[in-house]
């Protein structure tokens, strides 16, 4: 087996003294795509945030490319973070900068790439996602779907080893949702590792290598997406609730 790109070992995390992750373990191989599903409050967002240590784990280890991230100093951690692309649910674009500036800022400040070269990289990513004509717009002038694609372009421009996407389509109208899904399919074809929190079952079935289902801060089912959906009645019931697509659960 190839060495894991990312490994979580009994990771626990808490907000204000209340534990929300109760010892989560998982592995991700290079170019593998993992979809995480689960009800609100099950710890999905925290799980994503704990990987680049945006939330500090209270116990356990996060091993990325063979290095335990939990033991890194601030400067070392910043270098590792620039290899991990994180997209929050509401895009996190900086509203006072144009789309182009949003993408070039980390390239220039973190990677030290000169402005001209940074702009070339930015435009290349915007073209990939079909929004190169929006480079000079400000986030508030874009639709939700366009903002999400711009945020995706910013992450891709950093050329990360892994992308962490938190419900990339949940805040969108139906048309924008399709645009973003299309973008996600094209990003998936790039062969990058991805962890995607989403309830898009079609995406999970067609693109993900694995599916993990979380409840109350723990992964309670994990495996090949079709197999998990077939095997776990909990997962089917959940999917029925969120999508009403798979038919009523049998009792």
């Amino acid at each position, binding site marked *: 087996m190839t060495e894991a790109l990312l490994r979580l070992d009994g990771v626990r995390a808490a907000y204000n003294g209340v534990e929300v992750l109760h010892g989560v373990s998982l592995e991700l191989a290079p170019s593998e795509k993992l979809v995480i599903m689960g009800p609100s409050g099950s710890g999905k967002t925290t799980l994503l945030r704990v990987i680049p240590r*945006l939330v500090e784990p209270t116990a356990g280890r996060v091993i990325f490319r063979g290095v335990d991230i939990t033991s890194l100093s601030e400067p070392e951690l910043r270098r590792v973070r620039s290899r*991990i692309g994180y997209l*929050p649910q*509401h*895009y*996190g674009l*900086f*509203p*006072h900068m144009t789309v182009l500036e949003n993408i070039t800022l980390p390239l220039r400040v973190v990677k030290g790439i000169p402005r001209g070269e940074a702009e070339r990289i930015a435009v290349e990513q915007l073209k990939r996602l079909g929004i190169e004509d929006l480079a000079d717009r*400000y986030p508030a002038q874009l639709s939700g779907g366009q903002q999400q694609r711009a945020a995706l372009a910013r992450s891709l421009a950093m050329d990360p080893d892994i992308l962490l996407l938190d419900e990339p389509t949940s805040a969108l109208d139906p048309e924008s949702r399709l645009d973003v899904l299309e973008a996600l399919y094209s990003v998936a074809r790039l062969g990058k590792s991805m962890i995607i929190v989403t309830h898009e079952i079609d995406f999970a079935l067609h693109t993900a290598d694995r599916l993990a289902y979380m409840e109350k801060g723990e992964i309670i089912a994990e495996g090949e997406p079709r197999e998990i959906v077939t095997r776990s009645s909990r997962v089917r019931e959940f999917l029925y609730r969120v999508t009403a697509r798979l038919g009523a659960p049998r009792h």
Partner: protein
Amino acid sequence: MIDLAIEYSHLLAEGLERTLVIGVASFTLGFAVSMALSFARFMGPQPLRAFAEAYIAFIRGTPLLVQLLMLYFGLPSVGVRLDALTAAILAIGLNSGAYQAEIIRSTVKAVPEEEVLVGKSLGLSDGQVLRYVILPQAVRNAIPALTNEFVTLLKESALASVIGVMELTRVGEFMTSATFRALESYVLVALIYLAVSYAFMGASRGAERMLAIPGFERWSR
């Protein structure tokens, strides 16, 4: 009243100039103090943070007049003698610093947490997140409140008359004692304060519009 204005125009102009000097100098000092307090609060070690909080609590919890009297009449007993204008600028500036720090704090807190997280996740340091992500938005959003603070401070500069600074209010007192036309003298002085305050508020609206983030214009009308 017009004859009064003409007769004392020279003195009124000097008084206004002094008022503006106190206003601009103490506001600038206050802004510098507020930035130092903000960095101490958000990024400083615990003792510095505690000092910043204590400073703000003291300033906000005591009258400006008492602070002014402490500096002007109190400091000479420990060997520090300030002239009246310096004492006024210092007292009002140090006082305003605490209030400006509170304004900055509220606008910093208004920057969504997701933007801070994304900044960090892209590999920016805390200082870079503050510089590139938080402050450009926080300072823009602070313009209306900071203008308000400046106008308040311009009016508070009248307190400098108590220690003998010949600013606008003191000129009013002088005119009253010279002519016994108290109502007209003070109405004249009040109208000058009003005109200056309105001019600055108008300028602030212009600055807000100029610095508005495209797509957010409807909020800055």
